[in-house]
C-alpha cells in the first residue's frame, strides 16, 4: 500500500490461521499500522486480501465488517455514550443501513459484555471508566461484531505491566474461543510470549518472520531497531532485554 508515490508497505504476504495469533513488529514508521489498516479494508492497497479464501474487495464493506473487526490504537470513545450503547454499535455490520438493533443484536452485545466481565458497567457512560475498563469496553465492541478475525493496533501501549498482561490474556482467551488475532506490538518480549508467529517489518518490507526464537535475535533487533539488546532464552520464552552500549 502507498501514500502518494511512497510505498508504505511492500511485498507483504501474510497468512493468519484460524485460532492463531500473529504479531506485526518493527520500529516506528515500519508500516505496521498501514498493513493492519489495509487488512481491515480501511486503506487502498495493491494486491489482494483474502478472508476465508474470498477477495475482500469483492465482498464489499459490510461483508468484510462481518468477518474482520478492527480496533485502532486510539479508539474514539464518545464520553457520554453508555457502555451498552457503545458495544451495540459493534453490531452495525449485522444491521441494515437505516435499521435498528433487534433482540439478537442485544443478546450478542450482552454476551460480549459478559465475556469481558463488564456487564455491571453496561449503563455507565464511557467517560466515567478507568483506562483498563475502557479498554475492555473497546474489546467488547469488537467482539460484539462477531467477526472471526480480530485486528488490534498496539493494544497494550500506554498500559502498566499488570494491565498489559491482563489485556493480552484476555485476547488470548478470545483466541482460544477460535478467533484469528493479528496485533501490532512494540514490546518484543510480550509479542514473543503471546503470538505464535512474529512478522518483523522494516521500511515497509518483511525482513524476518517465524517463531519468537527465530525472529528475536540480537542481530535482527540491532539491524532493524538500532537497539543494543541481550536475548535471554529459556524454557519460559524469549526475553529481549535492552542493554546500554557502553
Amino acid at each position, binding site marked *: 500500500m502507498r501514500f502518494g508515490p511512497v510505498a508504505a508497505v511492500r511485498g507483504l504476504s501474510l497468512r493468519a490461521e484460524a485460532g492463531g495469533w500473529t504479531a506485526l513488529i518493527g520500529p516506528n514508521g515500519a508500516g505496521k499500522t498501514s498493513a493492519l489498516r489495509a487488512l481491515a479494508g480501511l486503506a487502498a492497497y495493491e494486491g489482494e486480501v483474502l478472508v476465508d479464501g474470498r477477495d475482500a474487495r469483492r465482498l464489499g464493506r459490510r*461483508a468484510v465488517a462481518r468477518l474482520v473487526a478492527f480496533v485502532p490504537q486510539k479508539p474514539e470513545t464518545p464520553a457520554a455514550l453508555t457502555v451498552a450503547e457503545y458495544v451495540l454499535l459493534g453490531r*452495525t455490520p449485522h444491521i441494515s443501513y437505516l435499521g435498528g438493533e433487534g433482540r439478537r443484536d442485544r443478546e450478542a452485545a450482552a454476551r460480549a459484555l459478559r465475556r469481558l466481565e463488564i456487564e455491571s458497567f453496561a449503563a455507565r457512560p464511557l467517560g466515567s471508566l478507568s483506562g483498563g475498563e475502557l479498554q475492555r469496553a473497546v474489546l467488547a465492541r469488537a467482539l460484539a461484531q462477531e467477526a472471526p478475525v480480530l485486528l488490534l493496533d498496539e493494544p497494550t501501549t500506554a498500559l502498566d505491566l499488570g494491565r498489559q498482561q491482563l489485556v493480552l490474556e484476555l485476547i488470548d482467551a478470545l483466541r482460544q474461543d477460535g478467533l484469528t488475532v493479528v496485533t501490532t506490538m512494540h514490546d518484543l518480549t510480550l509479542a514473543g510470549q503471546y503470538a505464535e508467529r512474529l512478522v518483523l517489518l522494516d521500511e515497509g518490507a518483511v525482513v524476518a518472520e517465524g517463531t519468537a526464537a527465530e525472529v528475536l535475535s540480537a542481530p535482527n533487533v540491532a539491524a532493524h531497531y538500532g537497539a543494543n539488546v541481550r536475548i535471554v532464552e529459556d524454557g519460559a520464552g524469549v526475553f529481549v532485554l535492552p542493554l546500554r552500549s557502553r
Partner: protein
Amino acid sequence: MTATAGRVESTPRVEARGVGLRTGLVTVAFLVAALAVGLAIGPVHIGLGSILDSAFSHVPLLHIHQSLGKDERGILWQVRAPRVVLAALVGGMLAIAGASYQGVFRNPLCDPYLLGVAGGAGLGATLAIIYASAAAAGTTWTVPLAAFAGAIAAVVATYALGRSVGAAHMTGALVLAGVTMATFTAAVQTFVQQQHTQQLQNVYSWLLGGFSTATWHDVAICAPYVGLSSLVLVLHRRVLDVLSLGDDEASSLGVDVGRARLAIVVAATLGTAAAVSVSGLIAFVGIIVPHTIRLLVSTSYRAVVPLSLLAGAGFLVLTDVVARTVLSPAELPIGVVTAFLGAPFFAIVLRTSRTLR
C-alpha cells in the same frame, strides 16, 4: 425461582437510549402547547375552546357550530395558523439540521448555516429585493426563490472548494471552506446593500428573519422540503451515532462514511435552504435546541435528532409569540429574540461543553 432471579440479575440491560416513551410524550405535549399558545395569543385573543370548535366545525357529520365570527375566523385561519405552522416547520428544520451537522462534522458548535447557506441566501435575497422588486413588482416568489438559489449555490461552491483539498481532510476542509464562503458572500451582500441604501430597511428586515408575512403559500413551498429532509435525517439517527466513532471505525463497521455523510449533508442543507428562503436568517435555533436535548435527555443521536425536530418546532413558535407581543403592535425581528435568548444560553453550553464531547 431462585435460578430465574439469578439469571435475570446477571443479564445486563443492553439497550440504546432512544426517545423514551415519557420523553417523547413530554416533547409532543410541548409542541402541541406551543401551537395552541401561538394560535390563541395576539392582538385579538381567541380562546382555546373557540379554536377547537372552529377546527372541528370543518369536520363533516360532527355538527359543531363555531362560536367565532367571520373576522375572527379570518384572523385565526388565514393569519395566525399559517404563521404558527410556518414557524414550526422552520424551527424544526433548523434544529434537526443543526443536530445533524454537529453529528456529521463531530463538532458540537456547528450550526445549520455552516456550509454557507445563510450567506448565500442573504446574498440571493438582497439581490432580489434590490433588483427584482422594481422589475417583477415583487411577486411572492421572487425573494424566496432567489434566497433558495443563493443558498444552494453557496453550498455547492463550499463543497467544491472543500473537496479540492482532498478526501482525507474533508470534514475540516469543508468547515473552513464554509467560513470562507460565508465571509465572501457577506462582503458582496454588504457591498450591494450599501449601494442601495433606500432598500436597506427591507434587506435588513429580511436578514433578521420573521414570519409577519407568512401565508399558506409559504407553508406549501417549505413543507415538502422540510418533510423530506427530516425524514432522511431521522432515518439516519443510528448512522450518526456510528459516525461519532470516527471515520476509520465507522468504516470498519461497514458504513460507507463518504456516502452517509453526503446523504446527511444534502438533506440538512436542502431543508435549511428551504426554511431560510421563507423565513430569513434565524440564528441559534440549530445550536440551542440540540444542546438542550443533549443536556436534558441524551447525547445519542437517536434521541437528539427526532427530539430536535419536535422541540425546535415548539421553540420557534413560542419565540415568534414573544417577537410579536413584546412591543405589540410593532414586531421584534425573531432573529433578535432567538439571539437574545441564545447568546446567554450558548455561554452556558460552552462552559459545560467538556461533558458534551
